[in-house]
């Protein structure tokens, strides 16, 4: 599994550092691709989602801020971010801790489905994040990726 993290938003005093993932072979993060794709149609929703992410940076990625805590497998920290009315868009992320949040990609959740597994686009994004979360945990265990002062230090070449 090859990917790199980019730092997106700086943590406030008690907040979370926000990262995005750039998959191997891509020039932009999945998060940026998500934004660029949906700006023309859902800009207001994206503005709310961006404000919500900024609030995580300020107040922390608190457990209870994420209504659906386990979008992936239990314990992998995969959650969804959406606007207040849960209108159209779902942005998936890995909530590593209250102080580290890693943004993945996302898409439009069709009204006629209940779970991401029923939508090929959302499934692709979540399944990718599940693999990233697994690899991230493995690299942390090996000490190749470390967390210092609530920041990700990636020592992979």
């Amino acid at each position, binding site marked *: 599994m090859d990917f790199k993290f980019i730092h997106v938003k700086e943590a406030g005093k008690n907040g979370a550092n926000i990262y995005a993932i750039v998959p191997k072979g891509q020039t932009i993060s999945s998060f940026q691709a998500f*934004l660029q794709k949906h700006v023309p149609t859902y800009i207001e929703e994206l*503005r*709310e989602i961006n404000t919500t992410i*900024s*609030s995580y940076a*300020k107040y922390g990625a*608190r457990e209870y*801020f994420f209504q659906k805590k386990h979008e992936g497998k239990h314990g992998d920290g995969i959650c969804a971010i959406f606007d207040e009315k849960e209108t159209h868009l779902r942005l998936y992320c890995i909530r590593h801790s209250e102080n580290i949040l890693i943004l993945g990609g996302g898409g439009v959740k069709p009204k006629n489905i209940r779970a991401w597994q029923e939508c090929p686009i959302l499934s692709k994004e979540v399944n990718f994040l599940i693999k990233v979360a697994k690899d991230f945990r493995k690299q942390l265990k090996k000490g190749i990726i470390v967390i210092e002062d609530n920041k990700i230090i990636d020592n992979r070449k």
Partner: protein
Amino acid sequence: MKNSEDLKALLDELESGIDKCKKKKIEEKMLIASRLDDIRKSRGLSTKREFSNFFNKRPSEIQKWLGGKHNFTIDTLIEIAEKLSIDYKEFLFEKGIYTRLQNNMNCTVYMSIPIQLNQPIMGEKYSTSFPNMQILTKTRSIKDKLQLELKQ
């Protein structure tokens, strides 16, 4: 580096384009939920179940309170604060600030007062809602906000 600059530009555009009132509503709801969560932790109520038992509420109600999207009424905030034996205004300030103000300790508060460039700010009149507190200094901070230092 161009791609990270593109992302920054996109985020800046989203940030600047949002309706200010809508933005404030999102931020303040999350502030209140985070303060409630801080108090939950400081009282040793480590699970949602313990917290819901403390308030005699259903866990789903507590999830709503802590979820950062709940539109609290003043009545509800006062009821929660009374049960916790705190002032409900504690929910409206970041951790520690309200207590420091109450204790009349020096405290720096960042207020979202937009100021225009090249406009004098010293000598203008601002007041605080805290009794016995006076504005000690006024300085311009980043992003065109006014930084006030309050003192007894």
